């Protein structure tokens, strides 16, 4: 029997704001426990939520980037449940009137293009953090309580794990390039829950869903879905039933493990949040945000390959993160040759970042300095050998390349009136080389170039020296 899979994904993004969604407490990563909190985060009696405008702005950016329809009026709702990291015992979310509905993104799997629907996306608050002790107690830190989240709920449009993987990659890239989220799974700024059901081919009615929560990499998503497909198939073939349940992926064994069986839907007693007035999202505001929206990775790719003539591979490396693409764009805007800038970015700059385990935001190199250095190479002021020295200094200490080159006398020697006498002298001093040259030994030139370089401490323009030497030797 053949089976068909139906996969849906719920992805949470932490939105990149300076303060929390309903309180002005700072949003920071890794602060000391319970220090980034106030009476709102603690759900002290009498407190009320105050909505952060930027949360809407970032959410709307993602909605625009995924072609979703933004609702003219949104309203928050309460989802009621007790848990120590949920101090109000309700989460403020959007249940009845979410931020946006009916979006889509396009993916390409095995050469086939497919449109995957986004059912809806809504904004909500994150919960605090529980740390489970071994002594029978848990410890609650409310720093994360109230960090803004955007939940993007796909349609169950994916039919195999590869499509789910492609959807996640594409969604991450889109969101990353809006600048709305850091999209780092390892830091929890992107979290993925999946659900999968299978049914015999030809059957219309969907099978029973199994959910998997908190998968910590795209690879785990793909592997856990693939495992589930097989497992559910075997259960059904053996005449068994799939239970409505939540399972967990065990990365050590590559298997999924039953966490709990759901008996009916949880009763969260959703109702409209009475403490927040409705939010009317005007078309003017949406238009304004659309204007501020950073260029999408797809438009950038187009520019890189078709306008700048970069190789597709280089374009893709630059587009791996928004930071590197922004850096490159800024360098080009500052006058850098695009091909040289891409080469430097993808080899020297990336190499430095990997060696030092830092990100572009942490280093002292600016796009302007990179552009300046590339200009110096292009106009022959410095050799590429010197350029490496200049680069090392600039990236480590933020030194201005032009000033550094001038201060350290690194300007390349290209002046024939200076070089010609030197060439003449070196040929005069090495008659053997002339012999060798005449006998067709190319090595001879290399030796003479080396002599000139030695005398000029590497500053002589090697192309120029070669040319002059050839002329001189042929004239003898």
């Amino acid at each position, binding site marked *: 029997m053949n089976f068909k899979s139906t996969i849906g994904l719920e992805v949470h993004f932490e939105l990149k704001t300076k303060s929390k969604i309903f309180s002005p407490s700072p949003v920071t990563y890794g602060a000391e426990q319970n220090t980034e909190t106030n009476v709102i985060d603690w759900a*002290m009696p*009498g407190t009320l939520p105050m909505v952060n405008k930027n949360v809407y702005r970032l959410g709307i950016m993602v909605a625009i980037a995924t072609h979703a329809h933004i609702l003219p009026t949104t309203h928050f709702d309460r989802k*009621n449940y*007790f848990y120590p990291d949920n101090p109000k*015992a*309700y989460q403020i979310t959007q249940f009845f009137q979410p931020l946006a509905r009916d979006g889509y993104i396009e993916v390409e799997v095995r050469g086939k293009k497919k449109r995957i629907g986004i059912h809806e996306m809504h904004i909500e608050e994150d919960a605090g953090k529980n740390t489970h002790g071994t002594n029978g107690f848990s410890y609650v830190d409310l720093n994360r309580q109230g960090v803004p989240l955007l939940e993007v709920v796909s349609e169950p449009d994916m039919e195999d794990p590869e499509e789910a993987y492609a959807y996640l990659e594409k969604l991450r890239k889109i969101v990353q390039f809006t600048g709305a989220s850091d999209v780092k799974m390892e830091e929890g700024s992107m979290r993925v829950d999946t659900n999968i059901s299978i049914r015999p081919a030809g059957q219309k009615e969907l099978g029973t869903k199994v959910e998997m929560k908190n998968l910590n990499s795209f690879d785990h998503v793909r592997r856990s879905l693939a495992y589930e497909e097989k497992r559910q198939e075997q259960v059904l073939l053996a005449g068994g039933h799939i239970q409505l349940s939540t399972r967990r992926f065990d990365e050590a064994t590559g298997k999924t493990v039953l966490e709990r069986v759901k008996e009916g839907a949880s009763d969260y*007693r*959703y*109702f409209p949040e009475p*403490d927040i007035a409705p939010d009317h999202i005007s078309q003017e505001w949406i238009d304004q945000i659309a204007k501020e929206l950073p260029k999408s990775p797809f438009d950038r790719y187009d520019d890189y390959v078709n306008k700048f003539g970069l190789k597709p591979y280089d374009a893709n490396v630059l587009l791996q993160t928004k930071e590197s693409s922004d850096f490159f764009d800024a360098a080009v805007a500052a006058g850098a040759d695009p091909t040289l800038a891409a080469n430097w970015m993808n080899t020297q700059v990336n190499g430095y970042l990997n060696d030092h385990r830092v990100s572009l935001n942490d280093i002292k190199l600016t796009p302007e300095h990179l552009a300046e250095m590339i200009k110096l190479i292009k106009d022959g002021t410095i050799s590429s050998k010197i350029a490496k020295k200049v680069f090392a200094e600039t990236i480590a200490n933020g030194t201005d390349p032009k000033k550094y080159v001038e201060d350290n006398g690194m300007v390349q020697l290209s002046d024939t009136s200076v070089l010609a006498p030197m060439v003449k002298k070196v040929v005069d001093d090495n008659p053997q080389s002339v012999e060798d040259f005449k006998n067709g030994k190319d090595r001879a030139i290399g030796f003479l170039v080396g002599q000139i370089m030695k005398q000029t401490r590497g500053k002589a323009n090697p192309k120029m020296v070669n040319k002059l030497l050839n002329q001189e030797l042929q004239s003898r």
Partner: protein
Amino acid sequence: MNYLNENIDSLNKKLASGDLSADKLAQDTVANIKDTDKKLNAWITVVDDAKPAENLDFSKSKLAGIPIAIKDNIITNGIKTTAASHMLYNYMPMYDATVVSKLKKAGATFVGKTNMDEFAMGSSTEHSYYGATHNPWNLDKVPGGSSGGSAAAVAGGQVVAALGSDTGGSIRQPAAFNGIFGIKPTYGRVSRWGLIAFGSSLDQIGVMTKRVKDSAEVLNVIAGADEHDSTVSTREVPDFTKFIGQDVKGLRVAVPKEYMEAVDGKMREVIQKQIDALKDAGAIINEVSLPHTKYVVPDYYIIASSEASSNLQRYDGIRYGYRAEDTKNLLDVYVKSRSEGFGAEVKRRIMLGSFALSAGSYDRFFRQAAKVRTLICDDFDKIFAENDVIVGPTTTEPAFGIGEEVSDPIKMYNNDILTISANLAGIPAASVPAGLVDGMPVGLQIMAKRFDEGNVFKTADFIERSNKFYEKTPTGMED
């Protein structure tokens, strides 16, 4: 020092002239509360060493140096705030409600927190962890509720003004039972930041005073936009005292027949007298109908209880408040702390609210109630298209005896039928003393359209001048 024959103007004059010092006023007020509260039990917390604010300017602020009572569901930084619940018996806040900050700025003196029904759920102040409050007119009767402590404190001469809160009549009903004035402003007129939530879409902080003008003075201070409460209106706040002393000629007064039919003959007579006085002074009286009146009690109890069931979930024994002992696990902490920390009436409302919101009930109860609420609002809109105010009785009967109704929740809920519409519609409403029935005060309720507290004050002030009820002294306070 008691306030039976004082008002804010008279006190301000004495303070400004130096005949009375703010320090002495604070001390004497506390001493009198301690003395008279043996009878009333109107207070949960009294600030023994209450001191006036510094740098008082009696010419700039009428409230400078004036002791004001605060209902114990309003958060006061550094003064225990319990909402009359065992659940918060030890809760010490670390911030101030917006109304408290505003009163502090105006130089008011804080002498303590008044008794109430637990979490403001009740109409008799019998549902308090700290015991029932007694009515100053007859100590065997309830003062009403839930702001019964604030009402009794004002009527008994312990303070000149008190803050209350009103979710379904919790200011107006006790005002009526105690022969004082009490106003619930428009929803969104006063910030709820720091008001311990009961029914968030209905709750509103208001003022209780003996004299109408004094409430206008206090409301002037506490009203207005607040960045902490996104449901507060940003409209300009008028000077409410300018509505005092005006005449009512041409005022269009609607009298709902459903309200007049809800009371017995004796009470109707007292209320009719007030309406006649308005008519004699040139007001135009129109009999009108509020056809959905019979549905307001169920509508209100579904909405208020649903919101309350969610609002009260934060009381879980984890971060503050009562924590049960002998707990085996987390679920135990929740269930035992909540079951032991909440009183019976609070549990009833939580249960009703959780039920109304639960899967399978939501459409039939909560959603239906939200729709009926629209019809109730429409009834008022129609009347206010042709009338300036609505008047009628505040309550269906005068104060009942302590212990008489506490065991019959439905009877108790039905008592609120005349006051809760104003909360559902978010309109301003007040109760002004109308007279006595069998020796107990009854109130005339005055409602107006949203943000038209002005006409409420104007009408109430006229009634006060016409019946001079304030000249009477509560019979229970005579030795």
